[in-house]
């Protein structure tokens, strides 16, 4: 049962990633693209978690953890760049 | 899967090289970054690909991926990070000094000595 759920989960995340890519390519504004990337990072976290369940290992969770932290930071950095130009002011 | 990896490495290399050949420091640095991804993944792949066999010793493990290329790539990532950082700083300083971020030196600059002060 979990296997089927996982298959659906992977499908969902992949579909989401493709949609994110579409937004990334399409834009139109820079912030749209930043938002698309941010969403991609969150989706990547989902992907890693599902992969961990599938492979029955917790070894990959740190990666998800760091992604959660650093995805936030890079998105904020892009926004700060747009807002102020200077990321660390 | 091997094809996906090999072609990804190729695509990253191509994109990196193309940006590397641009005329401004900024795309060149991005090109180098892409090239670094490609090379790191290439080096990593030299240990051959394996799925879910992380080189962490445990009783349940079915096998292990080749840990050596991973260690090498880790070193390479760190080193290229340092290199990229220096390149960025130097590109910035060069731009601040000369008001141009073009990568080419003009003829006159080729022999021009820097200020001593």
């Amino acid at each position, binding site marked *: 049962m979990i296997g089927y759920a996982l298959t659906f989960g992977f499908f969902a995340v992949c579909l*989401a*990633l493709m*949609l994110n890519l579409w937004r990334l390519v399409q834009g139109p504004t820079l912030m749209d693209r930043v938002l*698309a990337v941010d*969403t991609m990072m969150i989706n990547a976290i*989902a992907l890693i*978690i599902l992969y961990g369940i599938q492979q029955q290992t917790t070894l990959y969770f740190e990666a*998800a*953890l760091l992604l959660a932290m650093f995805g936030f930071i890079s998105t904020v950095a892009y926004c700060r760049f747009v807002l102020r130009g200077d990321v660390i002011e | 899967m091997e094809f996906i990896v090999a072609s990804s490495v190729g695509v990253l290399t191509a994109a990196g090289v193309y940006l590397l050949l641009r005329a401004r420091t900024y795309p060149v640095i991005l090109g180098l970054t892409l090239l670094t991804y490609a090379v790191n993944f290439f080096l990593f792949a030299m240990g051959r690909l394996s799925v879910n066999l992380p080189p962490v010793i445990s009783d349940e493990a079915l096998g292990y991926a080749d840990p050596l290329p991973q260690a090498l790539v880790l070193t390479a990532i760190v080193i290229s990070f340092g290199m990229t950082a220096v390149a960025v700083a130097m590109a910035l300083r060069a731009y601040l000094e000369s008001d141009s971020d073009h990568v080419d030196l003009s003829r006159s600059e080729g022999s021009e000595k820097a200020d001593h002060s």
Partner: protein
Amino acid sequence: MAFWLELVISLLIVVGGCFVIVGSVGLVKLPDLMSRLHAPTKATTLGVGGALVASMLYFWGIEGKVSIHEVLITAFLFLTAPVTAHFVAKAYLHQHPEKKPELPPTGRPYGWSTYDAPPDGAAGQAANGEEAERKD
């Protein structure tokens, strides 16, 4: 593993997957950035949250231990998602100064912080509006 646990886990994964899809569909479908911002902020985050809880239950189920990582990831996500959204909105407002008249008044003597400088000395901050004068 108990059936009910498997069921819950599967449900969480499926529901989470649905929300993940919804978030990204919204990102594609909604007409402007501010509307699109709602989708990932809520739906995708919740979707990942579902997967995380599923994972936590799963490893609790097979190893009998609570894996803290998922909690930590969830905490980070729920802590950062509003901040990210806030920043994206601010950057959007900043990049679209034409939106300024459309915004409701603050109801305070000062404008919105993206456009207007904080009051002098509010936090020892001596910024003035002129310096941030807009070129366009």
